[in-house]
């Protein structure tokens, strides 16, 4: 219903002392302050449709956009007016689209929903959690998409890491052959390579976490400015860091072990090219 007010037509700013005191008040989207040069105390005219007779209202407040992902890409402004003023403006009569009910405690919620649904006709009561699940379907899809992209990225990282470890270890085949020839056991050499691989992976994870935090901050700053929203687009949490580091170290260990096995499986003299 509020979207129907997109035909908002600002009047020239009027000084507060010139306003008739009986004008209703309106809270405008904060973006309108900068986009339309409006200020608290100014008068605007709201109409239900372009060209329709409007209602003059005094700006009493500016509201910030909420961090709602479903609205982030919507460019239209939202205004808030008193219910009775909006009903009068839209000739909506004594009707509402929906209303919220607060129960004394969470245990009374289900009972209240049942009682309302048993008595009411023409509308249904839903627990807020159910509505959140319904409206969250879009984000469930996005989450699945991100997860799939994540799996592909991990796969690519694993191959990349394995390749790098293989190259690093193979580059040192003469050194490894020498170590074997002076008496180090195959297992000791393998362990040394695996420890080295884990250390490289951990170092990479550490640098990557820092890089990720910087990129995350840049992404947030860019999109928050672009969409003018307080919504946080990219969140680096301890869980995410722990997962990234653990994955890197595990991948590093696996890649190092595979590369080491490949090399220690060959005779030292073969590694030296003899």
């Amino acid at each position, binding site marked *: 219903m509020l979207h129907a007010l*997109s035909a908002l037509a600002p009047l020239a700013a009027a000084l507060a002392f010139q306003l008739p005191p009986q004008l209703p008040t309106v809270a405008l989207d904060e973006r309108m302050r900068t986009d339309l040069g409006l200020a608290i105390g100014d008068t605007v005219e709201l109409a239900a*449709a372009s*060209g329709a007779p409007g209602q003059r209202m005094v700006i009493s407040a500016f509201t910030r956009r909420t961090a709602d992902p479903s609205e982030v*890409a919507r460019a239209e402004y939202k205004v808030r007016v008193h219910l009775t003023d909006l009903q009068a403006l839209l000739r909506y009569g004594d009707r509402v689209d929906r209303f919220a009910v607060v129960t004394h405690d969470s245990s009374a919620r289900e009972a209240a929903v049942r009682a309302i649904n048993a008595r009411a006709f023409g509308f249904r009561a839903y627990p807020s959690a159910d509505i959140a699940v319904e409206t969250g379907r879009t984000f469930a*899809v996005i989450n699945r998409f991100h997860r799939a*992209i994540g799996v592909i*990225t991990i796969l690519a990282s694993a191959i*990349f890491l394995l*390749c790098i470890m293989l190259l690093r270890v193979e580059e040192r085949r003469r050194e490894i052959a020498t170590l074997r020839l002076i008496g180090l056991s195959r297992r000791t050499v393998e362990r040394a390579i695996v420890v080295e691989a884990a250390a490289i992976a951990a170092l990479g994870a550490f640098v990557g976490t820092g890089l990720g935090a910087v990129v995350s901050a840049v992404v947030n700053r860019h999109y928050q400015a672009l969409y003018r929203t307080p919504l946080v687009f990219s969140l680096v949490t301890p869980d995410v860091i722990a997962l990234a580091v653990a994955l890197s170290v595990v991948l590093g260990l696996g890649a190092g072990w595979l590369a080491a096995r490949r090399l220690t499986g060959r005779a030292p003299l073969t590694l030296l090219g003899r």
Partner: protein
Amino acid sequence: MRAALAVSSLLRNRARTALAVAGIAVATAMLLDMVMLASGMRLSFRDLLDARGFQIRLSPKGTLPFDTEATVGDASALVAAVAAVPGVAVVAPNLGAQLIAPRADGAITVAAIGVVPEVQGDFALRDGRLPQSGEVVASPAALQALSRSLGDTVTIADGWDPQLRTVREAVVRRIVGVGRFYYLGADQPVVALPLSDLQASAQGARADRISSAMVRIAPGRGVDEVAAAIGRTAPRVSVLTTAEAVSQADERLAYFRNLAFILGSVSLAVGFLLIATLMTVSVNERIGEIAVQRAIGVAASRIVQQIVVEGLLLSLLGGVIGLGLGLLTARYLDHILGAFPGLPPEIAFFVFQPRDAFTSLGLLLLAGTFAGVLPAYRAARLPIATALREEAVA
């Protein structure tokens, strides 16, 4: 000759080459997916808008078609005025509403679209015929939700009457067609009925009102020119060409475009690094061999070419495998995103075009070439005597 040398060099370390090819293939797959994602949504949305041959959309001033509940009054005069604009061939007005369809266990909400059946562009008939007064065309989801089939009747009501505890303005309509609705989700119960029938409901509140209109222009006329003329004739409505609608959708879907750009760049960087690392190590390993080649008279340019060809071969092999892999993953990712609630089934996020494959492969080959240039340059500038001496000592 150069290619044969490059191939034999790659085959010398098969495990390493296989891993590099696998890495490049995954990077290419990701790159292709992201190139497809960057343009797919726009393409499929444009195709959807063009599907019925309407090039211009009209909606209440300041709104997008069916983006709000806003309607325009005095619709007959508006449609007549727009139809009289030079270059306008067809005007298809429509009105959207939420209706109630009672059933044994309660009722469901049904999206209703009032259309002028002869010119409408909202649905295609799958079965049956277009509706006349007192008849409806229903979506398969509506038929399933109401347990009805073609030829049955369905009761639809305008709303609830809390005082009388019954539905308000209930009417019985015959289902004469099954339709595929272009702009609504496949799982959404929808009925289409003659515009005049829907306008007559809601106790006159919808009389002579429409939600939007689609305009088909006459052959040979410019869309922008006709849109501008309509804008002058009908200042109460927003006039949106298909290009503008696609641009609006693009703005709302900037997230996917940006994601595609970031992940595509990362994939390209990974491919580049992989090839560069591999070629660098490969050159380091073959310093002696390269020094011998140079010593027996092989030109530095031939060494450079051989190494660059090696990088190119790796890119080409990984790239071709990656294209196939990318198409498979694109299908999977599209299936995930296709589950967006209310998304029309015609909308696809990943749309394959040969251009996308060429772009991905081209970018990767370019990355492969550049990745091979530095190691090749190092190999070409190798001090022959020193390299041979060091190799002999080693």
